[in-house]
């Protein structure tokens, strides 16, 4: 009898508090599996956001630090600079990263801080009950735009991976999703590559993961997957947004 798949050693045995079908759980396990497969689990330090994944420090089986809302990149900067040989990551939602923490992520990327950010874009503030995020799509309903977001009132949704890619300090940005096995495999490959580039000292690495929020989107988990494919992927295209060749990255 050989084990083909079991819960990752990179996760604790604590039961996840996420809603049924919430993609946060899938994204957690991909980060955990990547750290284990790269032999980095014992050297990893994660920084949690404020948002539904606020309790991620209970789930990852490595050192974890909680940050104030949006400030994970600032905290990770301090951790990475004082522990340059550890694998440091932030795990942040779109409200956390693209609203209140927009300045922190932009400046960390600009400085080329050598940590990895896992950006979970579910186009909404999940934890607080479904308010509009900067990533909420045009026409998408939220408690603070009950007839749907409009361009006139809120502008067009922000594409963080593309925006951060304009900064020289950002050496790798890829957008992935976890809707099916092929995409889950691609997402894990991207996360592993980001950690490898970090450990090579190449610069700031950013993985945007499109994610579902069945509860606040008001859908079943399966309908939410379809909604993500039909609505999010056309606006937030999947794939590598930026990749600087290692020889062109400023390795310090």
């Amino acid at each position, binding site marked *: 009898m050989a084990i083909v798949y079991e819960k990752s050693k990179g996760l604790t045995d604590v039961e996840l508090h996420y809603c049924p079908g919430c993609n946060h759980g*899938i994204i957690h396990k991909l980060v955990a599996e990547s750290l284990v497969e790269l032999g980095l689990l014992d050297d990893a330090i994660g920084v949690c956001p404020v948002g539904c994944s606020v309790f991620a420090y209970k789930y990852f089986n490595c050192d974890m630090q909680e940050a104030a809302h949006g400030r994970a990149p600032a905290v990770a900067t301090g951790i990475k600079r004082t522990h340059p040989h550890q694998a440091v990551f932030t795990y942040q939602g779109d409200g956390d990263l693209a609203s209140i923490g927009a300045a922190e992520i932009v400046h960390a990327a600009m400085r080329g801080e050598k940590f990895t950010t896992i950006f979970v874009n579910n186009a909404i503030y999940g934890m607080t009950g479904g308010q509009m995020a900067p990533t909420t799509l045009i026409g998408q309903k939220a408690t603070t735009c009950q007839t749907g977001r409009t361009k006139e009132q809120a502008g067009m949704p922000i594409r963080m991976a593309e925006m951060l890619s304009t900064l020289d300090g950002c050496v790798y940005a890829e957008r992935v999703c976890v809707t099916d096995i092929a995409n889950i495999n691609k997402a894990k490959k991207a996360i592993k590559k980001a950690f490898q580039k970090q450990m090579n000292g190449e610069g700031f690495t950013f993985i945007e993961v499109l994610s579902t929020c069945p509860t606040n989107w008001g859908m079943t*988990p399966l309908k939410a*997957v379809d909604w993500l494919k039909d609505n999010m992927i056309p606006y937030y295209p999947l794939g590598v947004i930026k990749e600087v060749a290692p020889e062109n990255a400023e390795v310090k």
Partner: protein
Amino acid sequence: MTAKVTFNSDRCKGCELCTTVCPKHIVAIDQTVINRKGYHPAHVTDITQCIACASCAKICPDSIITVEKF
């Protein structure tokens, strides 16, 4: 192939994601059972058809599925 798929059913949230990825269409929600969380948990309907691909386990957000093969 002889395969074994184990569900930590107490922790299943009945989200159905695992039912969408099985190439053999043998993962389903068991409507006859209600677990301690109040959900109908997922199960395998015909283990003899399982190819131990672990797709069901990989997509489970709660990581409650273990797949083994002989």
